[in-house]
């Protein structure tokens, strides 16, 4: 609780004007809608103030540079700031252009990806700047709220059949964060995987038949002690990082000190780290611009292929992710080209969850990837 902070904002969607529920449940019926906005005043723990956890931060930044890498899975000890990092990242992402009033935050610059509403609209589309949505999927969410369902109010009051978009719609072009992903109901996990893979949410329920874009970066966190994830699910995540509690005393003291400073003066603390956060945001923006033009040399491609071969990863997804993430890393660092060094540094995150598991092999998958990297890449 401490690491996550009792005073932080929930997520940006909560204060976003696009909150679809605002239209559905009027103030009288929901109770205290004003309170939904009250907590937005306490700033989030800044991303740049997180001590250590370099691999996790690297993975999240890569997903922010190139959302097509396919999500990040953060597995590890309790109290290591998993949620803090994700919420911190959300707070520093540059805002994006979206069609005004569209519940799916359609990108006006990409007509092919427009939702049915925007496509049917006769009047020219107006656009507005909105923060990148970071949607929390709370445990206990029902399927109808996740995929969207019949609009209750209109069904009850007017007998109309109208679609009310769910969390997947809100997460379009942003992040969908699931804490304790291994505790989520199986059928919800299957559903999320399907949508994440296709980028389209298909709703066939309650007499509705709707398709809408749902491209999002799936960020899951959990603890392996609570139960394993199925291999099919593991493979869908682009990057998997393991986080551990820092063990050296100075780092531990530093973590506690910063947390204490934040809790006692959130605003002042965030202001102190604002320049650092700003620098990361600038780097991200530059990296996104650089990404399309970044060339992956044949030598790097080949090395990646050999690495996957040596590790015996199933399918091409591993290779593809390795290339994409190495490229995003190079873009983030402002490199001219993607080198073997980028490959070596991203390989553990990109491949460790794709190894065929041998339950009798005691050595962890991280060690196996490291070994393979050493053998294949240290030419």
């Amino acid at each position, binding site marked *: 609780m401490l690491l996550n902070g009792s005073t932080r904002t*929930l997520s940006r969607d909560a204060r976003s004007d696009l909150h679809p529920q605002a239209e559905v449940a009027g103030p009288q019926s929901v109770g205290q809608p004003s309170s939904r906005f009250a*907590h937005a005043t306490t700033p989030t723990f800044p991303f740049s103030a997180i001590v250590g956890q370099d691999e996790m931060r690297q993975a999240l930044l890569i997903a922010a540079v190139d959302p097509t890498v396919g999500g990040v899975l953060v597995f590890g*000890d309790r109290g290591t700031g998993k949620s803090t990092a994700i919420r911190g990242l959300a707070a520093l992402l540059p805002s994006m252009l979206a069609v005004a009033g569209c519940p799916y935050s359609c990108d006006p610059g990409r007509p092919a990806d427009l939702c049915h509403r925007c496509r049917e609209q006769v009047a020219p589309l107006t656009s507005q700047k909105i923060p990148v949505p970071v949607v929390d999927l709370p*445990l206990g969410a029902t399927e109808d709220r996740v995929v969207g369902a019949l609009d209750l109010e209109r069904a009850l009051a007017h007998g109309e059949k109208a679609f009310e978009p769910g969390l997947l719609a809100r997460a379009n072009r942003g992040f969908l964060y699931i804490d304790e992903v291994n505790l989520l109901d199986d059928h919800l996990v299957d559903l999320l995987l399907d949508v994440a893979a296709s980028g389209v949410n298909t709703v066939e329920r309650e007499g509705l038949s709707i398709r809408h874009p749902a491209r999002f970066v799936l960020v899951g966190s959990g603890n392996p002690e609570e*139960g394993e994830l199925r291999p099919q699910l593991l493979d869908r995540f682009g990057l998997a990082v393991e986080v551990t509690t820092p063990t050296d005393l100075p780092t*531990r003291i530093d973590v506690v000190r910063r947390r204490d400073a934040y809790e006692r003066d959130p605003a002042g603390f965030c202001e102190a780290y604002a320049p650092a956060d700003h620098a990361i945001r600038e780097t991200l923006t530059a990296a996104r611009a650089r990404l399309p033009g970044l060339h992956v040399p044949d030598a790097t491609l080949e090395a990646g292929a050999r690495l996957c071969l040596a590790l015996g990863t199933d399918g091409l997804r591993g290779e593809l992710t390795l290339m994409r993430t190495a490229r995003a890393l190079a873009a983030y660092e402002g490199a001219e080209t993607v080198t073997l060094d980028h490959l070596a540094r991203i390989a553990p995150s990109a491949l460790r969850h794709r190894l065929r598991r041998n339950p009798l092999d005691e050595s962890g998958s991280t060690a196996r990837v490291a070994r393979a990297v050493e053998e294949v890449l240290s030419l």
Partner: protein
Amino acid sequence: MTAYQDNRLPVATPSAWADALRVARLVAADPHGIGGVVLRAGAGPVRDRWLAALRAHLPSGSPMRRMPGGIADDRLIGGLDLPATLAAGRPVAQTGLLAESDGGCVVVPMAERLEPGIAARLAATLDTGWVRVERDGLGQSLPARFGLILLDEGIGADERVPTVLSERLAFHLDLSAIAWGDVQDAPTPEEQPNGAATQTDAAITALVQAAEALGIGSLRGPLLALRVAHLAASLDGRDALSDADTIEAARLVLGPRATQMPATEPAPEEGDAPSDQPPQGEGDPAPETPSEANALDDSVVAAARAAIPPHLLALLTGDGPRPTAPKAGKAGAAAAAKRSGRPAGTRPGDPRQGRLNLIETLRAAAPWQRIRQRQASSPEMPIAGGSRRIIVRAEDFRITRFSQRTETTTIFAVDASGSAALERLAEAKGAVELLLAQAYIRRDKVALVAFRGRSAELILAPTRSLVRARRGLAGLPGGGGTPLASGIDAVAALALGVRRSGGTPVVVVLTDGRANIARSGEPGRARAGADALQSAGAFRATNVRAILIDTAPRPQDPARRLADAMGARYLPLPYADAGAMSAAIRSAT
């Protein structure tokens, strides 16, 4: 040790009950900030007294709600208030227990049996202080800044509150050793001297170091301790921390979390530290000399060390039973299964018993609308002009039925005695791990009971986690007698437990069938054999599917007889390796 004591600040160790009352006071001052308390105690007057003390300290009017064990999501988190929704003709939200407890405490009885899903929901709400409702067509966030009081009635180290929650709560309080007499005439604790003012930085260093010395891995320990120290200072009306705050926080928060004994060796440079100047509480700013900082560090460790509860102490020093990995709650899966899984049609029913299927409900209501409109438009129930409200009655409610494959739990009972040679044990371990690898694809669970020496032991509680399985298996010893009867009894008890919680147990017994330790623990082949057959008969009555794998080099009669008595399938596998064994079990189950 003497040099160590010389340099320590004077630490008062109040009685356990005084500490408990102090905890109640601290919790009441900021329930949400410090998470709450794990209260280990049986139901009884001592616990009631403590809860009464907590309520007395809480500001009047702040809620203190009890959460029933099998609470459903619509009551916990909130959801659609169906009667009100129908009456109003538009969605009306129902506030859940978590949001209703905002500003107060949630009391969770029998927290050691809390199911993982509910524990995770509580943890998520503790983290944010907000409860997110995304249910039944409603989406909203409500403030839920509460403290958790987990009433832990567990016995022994195996029954524990889910770690995901106990981690987040500052205090782990054990009242089980407190007698009613200690409670009745407890004097009000006198004010402790504050000690010197501490720099926050020094306090942080001291607490983090103490946590490390006590083997507390998670940083939540020292962070919570620091919060408690701040809280203690603010209760006194001070802004700055004092040494006493820091020491008290270490004692109350860090002590009960210890996983190892701190090394008693003092730091080398403190030998020449002036030992005769215990800092006074007169508010004079103590100069930050290294020796004083050390004094604080040492006192913090010493205070925390003194607060390690006795049963934990026994574990840590190796006198007690072998500590087993804490496990996530395993009860109550059956109740949850009714609300999840694949939809499989609808049936009439109370929406509180399942998930409302709106379309089917409206469809059921449709034919009656004319009649009901006419009835409703009688003078005492006027309807606003032109409103074509649909009138739905309780008998129209349709709820969705769900089908969920119940998960299978394969329980291994492994004969780890001397007669079943050690390599059989290694093969059994291998088979368990192979099956586990299969199991997590199929979402099944595996458990392991070993019997050797005089009794049977649960090595691995039903789990899906490879990490935990590997840890449990690594420590499995072999050798000794064959207490077959105890083994079968233990496995039967476990199988029934699995069935109670909604799973399907399958038992795999690996033995050569030659018992030589009776149920009483006494050696003797004849008695042991009779006991084993008796246990087998009792096992048969449970009607649990079972396989008996004969591990003797040559298949023999005793094992076959035992399999018959258990109602188990008999599978002689004299030379099976792990792979063959797991294949045989898979095909047989």
